């Protein structure tokens, strides 16, 4: 048998691929051959580790040394030093942002310490294109267990008792959903996996599909058995080519081993999987729109009832869950409902993957037990706010979610507490904002997104969000009027109350939550014509403070020639004529020119 003395894991997730991991892999391979090490050291392409901000990531086993931002030109040193001489390359190690200490080992990183990586457990550690890697890590044991020793009712019960709730947004109890579909009458039923991940900044589903596709396939197959379906669709957005490629490989491999197809494990159970590529409409993440899209129709939601469990794909009973939900299934079956239900809070069980983005040191994916506080996620795992700035707010749940202030940092993160404070779990996107973010501008950003992604079917969503957006634009342009806030609230209340689908019903949330926690900022924009964060250009001016020593640099720099003042005397800016370019503030040696 060939002896491999070291494994070099190179991340081939979308993030690391974008930062050059493919070139890095080629260079490493070449270098190993050159040094004659290619027989004893094996390169393994893995899925995403979630720490995308520091990519391309390289982990070398058996030590578990964790290298970050490894470039092609680092390869000779890495091979010579680590792989040949056994010395860690200090400069390529990750350094904690606060202490600046190097962290050689994967598990000791602040980013990973508080995580509980269950759904993401295999991601980054196995080769997603080799089914054997998944099986070696316990893959398909759950499927074998249900097909050989459990009734479909027992499977549904197990999921119910585990307390798993949908990870795609609404948080509906998964077991109950399965039970509805199981009990629905129909000669044909379907399992559909919603992989149309569309929230800006969220990419956990993509990472799972890219890093551990078999886990989702296994979850769907177990579901098929539980509800009595023999066919499933994976609705994956076309913008996820790598996920589609790896799923295609995974399905073919599973079929070849008889883990998909006819008479699986000789149990008489058949299950076939197809991939349907979505064309990139946000609304197709809504389940009825998604079903319409699979059927070849325009992706537009339809009213419920009837729910898909009764009348779904082509009018047949259909169970739809998202990627992360299905990825939770195998471990529940393997370890039992009681084990799973012990993780998390009373009403929110298990873990949740969050996508950390925005003004945060560690952008990436973090899987945490339900009930952890926002502070732990943002500061302990996320490493806090960069550039010494202060935390201001966090948008949770994507464009349909809400914006929470620092007073709520110690809120336990679970489905119900988030809804209570005007946000929602959504798919788990977290956008962190520091003091330089204008909350009106932020609300405008999210509303512009939902407005352009509205399917256009129902009046409140199509027309109402446009009017809200216009009012917000007016406020940020310095043309806000008294009464605008009340009009926004009236629109928001009615859109929530009358829109057809989840997209419309939640579209006003960013406005409502910013109004709830940052109303003062709206009022300042409207009444004082001022943007406290200095973001809205129409409302931002530059002022020269009494720190000014009259050096005259600003006066020389100003392209509009609107700064006046005597040498050694305090200068002033003609606010009427100022074009707000900010050149003066950048040039001032004493930082005497401030924005606001």
């Amino acid at each position, binding site marked *: 048998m060939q002896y491999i003395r070291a494994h070099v894991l190179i991340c081939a997730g979308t993030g690391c691929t974008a930062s050059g991991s493919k070139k890095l892999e080629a260079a490493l391979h070449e270098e190993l051959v050159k040094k004659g090490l290619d027989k004893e050291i094996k390169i393994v392409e893995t899925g995403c580790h979630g720490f995308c901000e520091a990519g391309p990531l390289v982990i070398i086993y058996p030590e578990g040394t964790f290298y970050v931002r490894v470039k092609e030109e680092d390869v000779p040193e890495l091979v010579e030093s680590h792989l040949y001489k056994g010395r860690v390359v200090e400069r390529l190690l990750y350094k904690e942002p606060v202490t600046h200490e190097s962290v050689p080992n994967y598990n000791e990183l602040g980013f990973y310490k508080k995580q509980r990586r269950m759904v993401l457990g295999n991601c980054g550690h196995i080769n997603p294109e080799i089914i054997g890697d998944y099986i070696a890590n316990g893959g398909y044991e759950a499927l074998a267990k249900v097909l050989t020793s459990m009734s479909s009712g027992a499977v549904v019960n197990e999921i119910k008792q585990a307390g798993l709730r949908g990870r795609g947004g609404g948080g509906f109890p998964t077991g109950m959903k399965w039970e509805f579909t199981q009990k629905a009458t129909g000669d044909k039923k379907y399992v559909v996996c919603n992989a149309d991940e569309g929230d800006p900044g969220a990419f956990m589903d993509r990472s799972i599909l890219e890093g551990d596709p078999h886990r989702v396939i296994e979850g769907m197959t177990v579901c098929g058995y539980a509800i009595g379906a023999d066919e499933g669709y994976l609705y994956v957005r076309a913008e996820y080519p790598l996920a589609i490629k790896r799923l295609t490989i995974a399905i073919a491999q599973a079929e070849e081993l008889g883990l998909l197809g006819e008479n699986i494990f000789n149990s008489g159970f058949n299950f076939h999987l197809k991939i349907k590529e979505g064309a990139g*409409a946000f*609304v197709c993440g809504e389940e009825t729109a998604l079903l319409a899209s699979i059927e070849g129709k*325009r992706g*537009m939601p*339809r*009213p419920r*009832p009837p729910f898909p469990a009764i009348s779904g794909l082509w009018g047949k009973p259909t169970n739809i869950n998202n990627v992360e939900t299905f990825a939770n299934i195998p471990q529940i079956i393997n370890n039992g409902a009681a084990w799973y239900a012990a993780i998390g809070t009373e009403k929110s069980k298990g873990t949740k993957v969050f996508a950390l983005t925005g003004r945060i040191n560690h952008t990436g994916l973090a899987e945490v037990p339900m009930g952890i506080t926002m502070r732990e996620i943002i500061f302990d795992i996320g490493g806090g706010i960069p550039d010494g700035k202060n935390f201001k707010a966090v948008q949770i749940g994507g464009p349909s979610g809400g914006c929470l202030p620092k007073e709520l940092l110690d809120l336990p993160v679970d489905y119900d507490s988030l809804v209570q404070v005007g946000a929602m779990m959504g798919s788990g996107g977290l956008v962190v904002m520091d003091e330089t973010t204008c909350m009106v501008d932020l609300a405008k950003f999210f509303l512009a997104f939902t*407005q*352009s*992604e*509205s*399917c*256009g*079917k*129902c*009046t*409140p969503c*199509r*027309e*109402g*969000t*446009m*009017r809200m957006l*216009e009012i917000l634009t007016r406020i940020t342009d310095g043309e806000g009027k008294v009464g605008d806030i009340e*009009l926004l609230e*009236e*629109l928001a*209340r*009615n859109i*929530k*109350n*009358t*829109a*057809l689908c989840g997209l419309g*019903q939640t579209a006003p949330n960013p406005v409502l939550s910013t109004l709830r926690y940052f109303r003062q900022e709206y009022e300042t924009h409207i009444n004082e014509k001022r943007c406290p964060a200095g973001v809205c250009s129409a409302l931002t001016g530059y002022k020269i403070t009494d720190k000014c020593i009259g050096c005259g640099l600003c006066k020389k720099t100003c392209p509009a020639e609107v700064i006046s003042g005597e040498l050694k005397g305090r200068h002033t800016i003609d606010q009427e004529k100022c074009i707000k370019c900010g050149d003066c503030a950048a040039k001032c040696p004493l930082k005497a020119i401030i924005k606001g």
Partner: protein
Amino acid sequence: MELVKVTIDGRQIEVAKTTTVLEAIQKAGIKIPTLCYHPELRPEGACRVCMVEVEGARSLVASCVYPVSQGMVVRTNTAAVREARRMVVELLLANHPKDCFTCARNLNCELQTIAADLGLRGIRFEGKRKSIPIDANNPSLVREQEKCILCGRCIRACSERQGVHVYSFVKRGFNTNVAPAFEVGLDKAPCTFCGQCATVCPTAAIVEKDDTREVWQAISDSTKHVVVQTAPAVRVALGEALGMGPGSVVTGKMVAALRNLGFNRVFDTDFTADLTIMEEGYEFISRLNNGGKLPMITSCSPGWVNFVEIMYPELLGHLSTAKSPQQMFGALVKTYYAEKSGIKPQDIVSVAIMPCTAKKAEAAREEMDSTGCGPDVDFVLTTRELARMIKEAGIDFSSLTAEQFDAPLGISTGAGVIFGATGGVMEAALRTVVEVVTGKELDCLEFHAVRGLNGVKEAEIPVGDLKVKLAVTHTLSNARKLLDKINSGDADYHFIEIMACPGGCIGGGGQPYASCGDIRQKRLNSIYECDQCSSLRKSHENPAVKELYDTWLGKPLGEKSYQILHTHYHPQQRG
């Protein structure tokens, strides 16, 4: 049928379990506003005007799509409901041209009516409005998408009722719009111009092309001799547009009104309906005897002819070559009538009053020019346009004294008038074909098997030794079923009547708005009433038709008849 008890605004009623909340509300005698809802189309729940409170529901619910359940408590008039309704309508108005004064649907617009009913007194949003060019590149319909409220009724009418699927939603968000594929104009789309979209449109987003100005101008031109023909279905519907009840028979008043408007001669399309029976009847007998292509299918309905030319060109040989009554009439006016009256055809302006928008396109077909000096029918006005002219002229329609059509092109039989109803052409043809073939007079003239509003009607009628198998259908989605049967070889019919619109011409795309099943049934009843009151009820007994053959045409299917009264079809490459 399982019944459930629901409480609506405190009143308890019992309804079938399959009822929607809206239907239950209507059953309780409460009127709430609706826009995207149409009683004959699948509910969409899109406009959100019919929102009501259902106890226990998380938010308001769209009553048109929400099913009732046992013990449900519904409130239709709470503060939240009123606020939501007003907001939805205000939002629709904010993105709507406020040109009600000059709009084609002024005082006849569902959006305008709801805004008035809700007492809206201002629109607080003065932002972006959609801006889309008007589509008026076809002879029949005008689409002004800035007036579209995206209720989707046209999409559903075209797909569900007609099976043509011209329209769909395109684009997203605020830019969402209704359009044919690739946003081409209707002239480039596989549109049959049947106008059913216009009949269900709640606003003026789809209307007939207005030709009233041209007709007024012709009337006031003293050098022109303006003649008008009126289709059978107009006389049972025109009254509706002028304040009379559905199904009012207004033939005589209509004739009087047309004379008042200034038409020089007022004729009746029923005359050429009788003539059509002669030509088409003899054509059918000839196909039967000489091994011609069967089943033969009627060709009076221009929406239907467009449909088959666009969608089933391989079946064109089944169509009767007889022109439609409108076009036979137009051809005769510019030839026979011109000759008889000594007026040059180029000095005659021939106008047709039709229940139909596709008739406008039919009149514009190149081949419909018998004299070489212009179209046989110069202008086609829909029933709605005629009603507008009557109003514009200040005629007090309901108090008019009935008058008679002019001779000879105004003389007709009951067989001609039933052309306006589904099954009517078939019944009229049978009255003539059976008597011509057997040489014996029919005992009973009424063929009830082909009457009524059922989708596809079939019958076997003995004609001499042969049992003739017939099928009659209306709406193009039903037509599609029959055509597919022909293509698959499962249709052993001899003769098929197809009308593009529901109920036949009485439910045409140019008829007064709000035509639904009940109203269509009333119009239908009136058509048969007209037939019953006629002294002559068989086309071959029409003395004016006889005279026409004797003195001018020769015989049915003769050389001159063939030249003037028959046409040909060609595949249309559209869409």
